[in-house]
């Protein structure tokens, strides 16, 4: 994952189609994570705040990384992504080995 952007509520996006999001440094723990996983998180940089739907304000001190979609779903998406990668790698190797 080369770039991650956040919107005004610190939700992550992997593209910036309207140029309105803020590019941020990709957290190391996003290495190897699929788009569905990443886009289910908020990354709140130090100095930023966001407001949850119930009115609770988080920040501004200290960078935080926390899901805004159910974490169980994000973990399941990542698990499926890794399974798909493993299957693709295995199929590729079989193809190589057959030559």
């Amino acid at each position: 994952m080369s770039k991650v952007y956040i919107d005004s509520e610190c939700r992550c996006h992997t593209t910036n189609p309207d140029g309105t999001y803020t590019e941020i440094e990709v957290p190391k723990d996003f290495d190897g994570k699929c788009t569905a996983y990443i886009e289910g998180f908020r990354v709140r940089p130090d100095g930023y705040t966001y407001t949850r739907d119930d009115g609770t304000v988080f920040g501004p001190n200290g960078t935080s990384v926390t899901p805004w979609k159910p974490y169980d779903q994000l973990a399941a998406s990542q698990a499926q992504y890794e399974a798909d990668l493993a299957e693709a790698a295995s199929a590729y190797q079989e193809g190589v080995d057959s030559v």
Partner: protein
Amino acid sequence: MGWGTGNIGGGTSLNFDVKSYATEEALLSATPKENTIGIITEHKITGWVFAATEPTEPVEGMVWISTGTSSAIEFNALKKNALQVYPISAKQYVGSAWMSVTAMNYHDAKWYDWVTYYYDNGDECESNGGLWTNSGYSRSGYSLLPPTKEDSYILVKGNGGSTANGFAGKEESVNLTDKDSITAVVVNVAGESGYMLVLSSQKFSSPTNAAAYVQLPGNTEEETIVLDISELSGSYYIAFMTGVSNKNGFKVLEVSA
């Protein structure tokens, strides 16, 4: 559960009352009936409802007391028979939106917070996740130095080297399903960076398997950090960690949710 009206006790069959107080000071100075739920709000309470999920037809002033399967202040809602209630948090419908309000229970002549403590100024709150330790945790390539336990705080401290993280984690995972936020009161001894509060579904081994984390502020003041955990369900391990090369560490005074 049912829908009750106004700041009144629910009749002769109910074992509790719901009352509003304009300020925390007003609440704490009051001595109401046993099992009174005190709501701190400036808005008139027009009724209350106990429910695990958001009421579908709220009215202005309604207080929604969300309930779960465990609570820091469970009680029997009935005078006869038993209906055990596990209040988690309270919200009031104001201006067409739900707003969080502070709620406490009056029990044995004392007000009790609805918050669950995992560490409280020297009390390790062993019944909530066990003791604070480094045992059972790991991080590839790094040693995890155990916490130092003082009278009123836990000190999490590295050794200033390149491969030793200071570490303090709860022995057991805790159920955070009904919790919206986790709060910690900390003091960063020398204002160093790289300290963090981490929640992970397995005993911590790396930030890459963390479900959520927040870095501690880089100043030396006593700070309250709050991590949004509203989308976490199930059990998680709570832990604090220094980065490598940090040597002065930080104090943990309180952890609650």
